[in-house]
């Protein structure tokens, strides 16, 4: 008994000592300025760049930005909106969630916060429209990306002088210049719980250029069926021209393989593939990160398919909204979308700005991608990101299914039709 009693006391003492030691090491933080809490999906190097971007604002105002990144942004904001405990500013998971938060009254309109005239003049109308709910500006794009770039390794074949102008041209050039490469395309759809999304970009890029933005917009809005001729044709193009020309469909859909590394075989010897389709942000990922832009890798834009729809570009971006309209939060929000702020981020590389006046791009590749984004004749936002989340998730999974087994196409489209029938009702 004596022995056991001693043990118990030691157990408690152990805990007490540990906490006191910890507390002694801890340091308190005090500041005079106001702080603005920000939650977003940016982490790692992106977080570093975001913090660099807000630094001048902090110096100027004496306020502090308390930023935290999370991958559970959906859960965190859903719980926050449900309970009312929210950060001052937050990155929003997508346009759908933004609309929900705005309707719930959680998001504060930005019309009186930003310099709206300047914002509208500097930003693509499609992006302004996406952030507007019922006539009020609820979200802005702090960061953007252009989708549908075709990356290649110039040492294998340099497309810079004569980039393919049409899809047919691309396929014939790529077949002719394959050389020692094992396959024409690199493809990787793995992305954790969001696996499949790189495939949705493929279908969207094809639909946009094959059937035009009217069909594209009706499609994500749920007014064009998945089994319709236009959408089915896009899937077929993807399956016959892309999936049939990759090294290993099993590897393309494997959940252990991340899309961020899918383009790496461009640089292996012999090359695993000749061309690779991915958004502008790939330059910050995988083997691209360590390679030299322009000499080790380059891109040409997704070529037109039907000349009637020439000049279409798809983009995406990270939406940002405000939950508390404190003066400091408003001031930060206003600052974030300005060209000087955006210039800091784009200069650090790996991201584009939705702001046309941000021009401080570090290299030719990012300059050209930004020009595509801001100069597009017809700019559209990522279709899957605009679909209801249940539809979007079904789309992701469908890409895995058909890529692995193209014979499943009809069955998959039929099941997507079923999801479409229910996902759009509020």
């Amino acid at each position: 008994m004596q022995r056991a009693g001693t043990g118990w006391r030691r157990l408690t003492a152990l805990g007490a000592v540990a906490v006191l030691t910890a507390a002694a090491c801890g340091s308190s933080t005090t500041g005079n300025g106001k702080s603005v809490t920000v939650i977003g999906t940016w982490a790692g190097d992106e977080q570093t760049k975001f913090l660099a971007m807000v630094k001048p604002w902090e110096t100027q105002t004496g306020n502090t930005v308390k930023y935290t990144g999370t991958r559970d942004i959906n859960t965190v904001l859903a719980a926050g909106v449900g309970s009312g405990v929210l950060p001052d500013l937050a990155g929003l998971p997508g346009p759908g969630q933004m609309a929900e938060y705005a309707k719930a009254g959680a998001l504060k309109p930005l019309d009186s916060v930003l310099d709206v005239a300047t914002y509208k003049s500097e930003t693509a109308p499609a992006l302004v429209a996406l952030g507007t709910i019922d006539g009020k500006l609820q979200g802005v794009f702090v960061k953007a990306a252009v989708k549908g770039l075709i990356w290649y390794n110039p040492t294998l074949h340099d497309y810079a002088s004569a980039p393919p102008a049409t899809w047919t041209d691309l396929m014939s050039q790529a077949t002719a210049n394959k050389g020692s490469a094992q396959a024409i395309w690199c493809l990787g759809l793995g992305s954790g719980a969001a696996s499949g999304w790189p495939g949705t970009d493929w279908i969207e890029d094809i639909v946009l250029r094959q059937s035009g933005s009217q069909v594209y917009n009706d499609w994500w809005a749920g007014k064009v069926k998945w089994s319709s001729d236009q959408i089915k044709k896009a899937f077929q193009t993807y399956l016959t021209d892309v999936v049939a020309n990759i090294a290993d469909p099993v590897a393309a859909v494997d959940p252990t393989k991340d899309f961020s590394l899918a383009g790496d075989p461009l640089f292996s010897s012999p090359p695993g593939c000749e061309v690779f389709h991915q958004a502008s942000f790939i330059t910050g990922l995988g083997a691209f990160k360590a390679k030299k832009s322009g000499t080790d890798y380059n891109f040409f834009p997704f070529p037109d398919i039907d000349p009637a729809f020439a000049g279409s570009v798809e983009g995406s971006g990270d939406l940002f909204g405000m939950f508390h309209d404190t003066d400091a939060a408003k001031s930060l929000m206003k600052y974030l979308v300005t060209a000087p702020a955006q210039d800091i981020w784009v200069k650090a590389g790996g991201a584009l700005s939705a702001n046309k006046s941000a021009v401080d791009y570090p290299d030719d590749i990012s300059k050209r991608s930004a020009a595509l984004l801001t100069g597009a004749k017809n700019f559209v936002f990522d279709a899957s990101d605009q679909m209801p989340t249940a539809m979007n998730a079904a789309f992701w999974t469908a890409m895995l299914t058909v890529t692995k087994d193209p014979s499943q196409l009809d069955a998959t489209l039929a099941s997507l039709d079923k999801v479409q029938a229910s996902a759009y009702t509020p």
Partner: protein
Amino acid sequence: MTAVPAVRGSAAAAPPRRRNPLFGRLALHGTLVVLMFIWLLPTIGLFVNSFRSASAISSSGWWTALFPPTGLTLDSYAKVLDSTNIAGGFINSLFITIPATIIPIFVAAFAAYAFSWMNFPFRNGLFVLVVGLLVVPLQTTFIPILQTYGKLGIAGDFLSVWLAHTGYGLPFAIYLLRNFMGSLPKEIFESAYIDGASPVTAFFRLALPLSIPAIAALAIFQFLFVWNDLLVAFIYIGAVTPDNLPMTVQIANLVNQFGAGFELLGPAAFISMALPLVVFFSLQRYFVRGITGGAVKG
């Protein structure tokens, strides 16, 4: 049902009788060594990879680094320690974990004692209800609790996480302790009551000390669950006082939204594992035979 005498003689400590032929001993050691190897293998893979660059990790298997040229580097460890406020996160993790381990143990011990040695109506029904609460998915509790915290103004404080982890940890804590206390022999309590002890005395002098192995096990698990928790802390703290977030948040944030920086997770995992292992080692000595003497009857 006689309690076995609590005397521990030298006979008890003697190795098992040599009835087993050599074959049996070999099978015993063989099985254990194989199991240990299987259990270590995945961690060894991560360990080796934690000393390799991102490009090496994704272009060749970790075992290739076991043979020259190994190309091992401490870069990732240096990056983890440099690029993030991991020290601050570590302190916060301690601040969150230690109270969130101690409070539920105390609360649960009293409840477990009541459930095992006091009579009251609906005792078993209530107890099973408590255990059944184990199945409640924590995610379903976030919104109402955060709402309450918002009204009380404690969202963002360490207190909010301490209380939440206490609530979440109680069903298992009560279950484990009640099972252990309930198996203590009736006789020792009866004789204590005959000597005029109150339930309070019986609890502190008998039930609690005799339950040390179960309490040690519980302390380890509760410590681990809280230490490794990411979501609960983020929900109750993240939006208001990000300075209070635990180390798990900083570790998860080493990787950007597209997966860049995954090579840093290995080093970070080993840094974060260190303390739980120390806790395990220091509490392991409470699992030795004989603390309860012959209390558990045969």
